[in-house]
């Protein structure tokens, strides 16, 4: 299932945050969206998943989601959004219960996604017992449980420390290699974007317009820390964004 954004414009109380964004999101690839702070990239993600309605333009699904897909557009949030009163297993079963999946059928799915995210030993643990990286793994496991057609990741690693971020990036690459998924990955971290993105969409500062779309041909598995090709790409992206980021930093907040 592909997604297409057609001339998306979005305003909050007369303040334009996104202007005329058109973008194609092909199946089986990860698209990274980067831009200076406040450029509306998280808003764009909420629009893609239907949590908000654009002021103008539309988001289109091309084709039908694959069979067995419970929730086609599934989010992974920056602050994990785990229910603190439910165990790791309970947080995953939460999203299955409404589809009538309980008991043995639910156990099978939960065991599978926990194994894929290396969490099998923590099924009974409560969120407060887990580190930030583990919490985000639980959130990723929960997203995998509904077998999404598109994963919408909203700065999923931004709340984590640098080392944990590195580990989780490797985990995400591993997950994609074993079973390629379609992903939209919003981040302000250029290093994450060049490691995880098949394509990178660069937004300008507010009102966010699409400035550039860059394709990266290097397979995900061959991208390592310190790869000169990635470093060069990252420098190029930073040069393109630096002025915008500086201007965005000087702006007064209106929200």
């Amino acid at each position, binding site marked *: 299932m592909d997604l297409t954004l057609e001339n998306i414009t979005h305003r909050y109380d007369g303040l334009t945050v996104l202007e005329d964004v058109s973008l194609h999101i092909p199946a089986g690839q990860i698209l990274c969206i980067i831009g200076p702070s406040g450029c509306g990239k998280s808003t764009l993600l909420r629009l893609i998943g239907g949590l908000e309605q654009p002021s103008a333009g539309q988001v289109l699904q091309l084709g039908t989601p694959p069979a067995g897909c419970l929730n086609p557009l599934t989010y992974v949030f920056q602050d994990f*959004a785990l229910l603190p009163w439910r165990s790791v297993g309970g947080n995953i079963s939460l999203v299955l219960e409404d589809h009538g999946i309980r008991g043995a059928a639910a156990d099978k799915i939960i065991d599978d996604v926990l194994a894929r995210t290396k969490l099998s030993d923590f099924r009974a643990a409560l969120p407060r017992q887990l580190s930030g990286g583990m919490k985000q793994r639980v959130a990723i496991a929960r997203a995998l449980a509904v077998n999404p057609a598109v994963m919408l990741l909203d700065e999923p690693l931004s709340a984590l420390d640098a080392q944990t971020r590195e580990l989780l990036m490797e985990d995400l690459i591993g997950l994609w290699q074993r079973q390629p998924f379609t992903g939209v990955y919003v981040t302000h971290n250029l290093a994450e974007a060049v490691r995880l993105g098949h394509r990178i969409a660069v937004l300008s500062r507010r009102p966010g317009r699409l400035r550039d779309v860059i394709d990266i041909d290097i397979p995900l598995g061959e991208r390592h820390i310190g790869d000169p090709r990635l470093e060069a790409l990252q420098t190029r992206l930073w040069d393109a964004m630096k002025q915008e980021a500086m201007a965005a930093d000087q702006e007064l907040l209106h929200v």
Partner: protein
Amino acid sequence: MSENMHPNNARPVPFRGGGFRPVAKRGAAIIVFTTLILLAEWGTRTGWITNLTLPRPSDVATTLIDLWRSGLLWTHLSVSLSRLVVGGTIGITAGIGVGMMIGLFSYVRAGLIPVVAALFPIPKIALLPLFVIWFGIDEASKYALIALGTFTPTIVSTYGAVDNVDRTLVRMGQSFGLSWWSIVRKIVLPGALPGILSGLRVSVAIGIILLVAAEMLGAEYGIGAYILQAGSLYDLERLFAGVLILSVLGITTSWIIGLLEKRLLNWRG
């Protein structure tokens, strides 16, 4: 320059942290209580405090023991407890229900918050004659009084608790396509539970206050009736015995709510 070169100037950095975080100290409450009681006993025995000012604690204890031996303690207590439980259950259940509705629906919120604000400050005791006309002099009017008294504070604490539920969790529920009812049951209600339970402490205390008020009219038995009888006869020993029972009731309900919190909110750690 090495830091060891000025040993004369070296002194430890003074500690400025600590405090502002009360920790549980076992037995402190017992020491305070016994000190106060012993002080009263000593004062009344030496005549420093006259018997008209304060009854002797040992006399109050004797009165309590007599009451217990005569079997009347259980009569009074069981009648009062059933009133508190029935009235409190009605008021608290309705209060949680209405509070949830106010927290969830804009129209209910806009329509009912002023009504609650108008009801809350009315001393419910003043409405007792009205309740007697509406529900009769029997149990129903007493239930109604306690129910109304616990109803309003429960509403206020419940919708406050619902307002404080983490919105990102609600958005997460929506993003996974959970039904409205699932979100209310599995996200909003458990998220509001800490606030609801701490509001319950206030509601139950108000319920106990109103219990005494409700037993002012047409009650033969009950702790409130017992206290009021003693009060009208200026029988201070019995008055204090009754007040003591109410205090114990207050401590017990607060302890039960504490247990509930421990059990239901164990996820907070």
